[in-house]
């Protein structure tokens, strides 16, 4: 049954990293990305790798879970590596054979580009693995609150995310049910060419949309009857508090960034 699907890729264990304020984690993720872009040497990347490894240890997230996030991007990373390897101009020729010409500069650039890509994915995975979708939408809402001045709908955006998360399991279950019901009427979702398969989706999609709209209408009425009137004057059950650990995390990130800048200057 679809009852037990996990949402997103959140890895539900308790850890110091999980308990960090989502706002801080969001900001630190951005800083991390900056650090990844600033690293210019292998020593820099070694530092970042060390940081990621330490964080995953602290977060009780197995390292292979992090690596799993790279899987769908394998091809792109390999492609990035190869393209840079073969097509970067350079002087220090390592191998020259027929039309293939591999230079030291090419190799370095290929390695850096693909490492950068990999670390971007791993860094954001660390965020989503250790932060529940609800906490994430909370963090985003608060971080975007200053933008309300320019009429950016921060609260509405977060509310939409929460409702979407709430209804994903319900709609999945419903999809399963409608699919079976149409199969009982002889519908065939599995065979035929692309066009006939797309056409076979109509008996599934129409009822699903109808039901989503009906649910949306019901929910709007239920929310109104419980005094929902937008973000104005609203208090919250979950109040985000910055703790000592958050400051420690910020410190650690500052050290990482500092070291990377430093080694860029020295080396």
């Amino acid at each position, binding site marked *: 049954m679809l*009852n037990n699907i996990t*949402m997103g890729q959140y890895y539900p264990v308790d850890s110091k990293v999980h308990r960090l304020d989502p706002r801080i984690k969001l900001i630190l993720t951005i800083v991390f990305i900056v650090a990844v872009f600033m690293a210019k040497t292998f020593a820099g990347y070694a530092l970042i790798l060390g940081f990621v490894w330490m964080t995953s240890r602290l977060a009780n997230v197995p390292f292979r879970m992090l690596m799993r996030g790279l899987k769908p991007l394998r091809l792109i990373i390999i492609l990035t590596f190869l393209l840079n390897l073969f097509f970067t101009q350079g002087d220090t020729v390592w191998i020259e054979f027929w039309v293939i010409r591999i230079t030291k500069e090419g190799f370095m650039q290929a390695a850096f580009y693909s490492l950068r890509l990999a670390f971007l994915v791993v860094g954001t995975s660390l965020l989503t693995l250790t932060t529940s*979708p*609800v906490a994430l939408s909370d963090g985003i809402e608060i971080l975007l609150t200053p933008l309300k001045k320019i009429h950016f709908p921060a609260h509405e955006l977060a509310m939409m995310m*929460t*409702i979407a*998360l*709430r209804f994903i*399991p*319900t709609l999945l*279950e419903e999809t399963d049910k409608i699919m079976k019901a149409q199969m009982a009427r002889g519908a065939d979702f599995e065979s035929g060419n692309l066009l006939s398969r797309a056409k076979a989706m109509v008996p599934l999609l129409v009822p699903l949309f109808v039901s989503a709209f*009906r*649910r949306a209408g*019901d*929910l709007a*009425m*239920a*929310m*109104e*009857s*419980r*005094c*929902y*009137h937008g973000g104005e*004057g*609203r*208090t*919250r*059950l*979950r*109040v985000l508090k910055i703790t000592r650990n958050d400051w420690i995390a910020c410190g650690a990130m500052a050290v990482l960034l500092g070291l990377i800048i430093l080694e860029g200057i020295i080396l």
Partner: protein
Amino acid sequence: MQTDTRVQLNDVSYTYEEQAQPALSGVSAVIQPGEFVAVLGHNGSGKSTLAKLLNALYIPTEGNVLVCGYDTREEKLVWEIRQRAGMIFQNPDNQIVATVVKEDVAFGLENLGVPTEEMLPRIESSLSAVRMSKYADTAPHMLSGGQKQRVAIAGILAMEPSVIIADEATAMLDPSGRKEVLETIRTLNRLKGITVIWITHFMEEAAQADRVLVITDGRIRLSGTPAEVFDRVDEMREMHLDVPHMTALAAELRAAGMPLKSGILTVEELVEEVERLCPLKSAT
């Protein structure tokens, strides 16, 4: 004004947009504080429209609705009214907003702007009142229908209402879910004195109310205690409504000449009457 916790309908009519026939016409009723009133009617009778009028989701086309002394026609009172008259809907899935039970219970409080430190105790006591405390951190989609409805009730309860309106809250539940939700509401009615307006088409639920209003074609057709209302078996049937099996059986026995007392609703009551009218030979 605060002391008035009645719900009053004064000659209320409501017509949906683009419709000629009114969904409700000329409905008047007063519901006393602490009363458990069942509103019985088939689909399209106007009973759901009535529910939505009581929560200021709809505003009467004619007449007025007073909830705890507040007139629903006054736009600025709408949040006052909705806080005092909480509503539970039919589909358990479509009224839960949050991804965790206790956060859903908090939803109404957040909307009212209740300070955070006040929220937790209110959430805890409402969850315990519906016996759902141990599910506080559960995701709603893991719950049964009856449990979801109890979470919805807790969400209303946390807002400390005087009136709870249930709009066919049991229609989509199985018999045990139906029983657990009705029992929860009856306990709240008895212990906390919350007025309950229970809209339903299940006669066995209406039979447990203090008073039954029967609605057809947008009008109140019958009103009285369950015994008074259900004894009018023929009228109820004519309106396509059920009567409790024992009431129907008693009516037939009466028609066949047996002098049964009126107002029989349960098996136990009928057994008593049979004992009275047909004493066992061994006992004498």
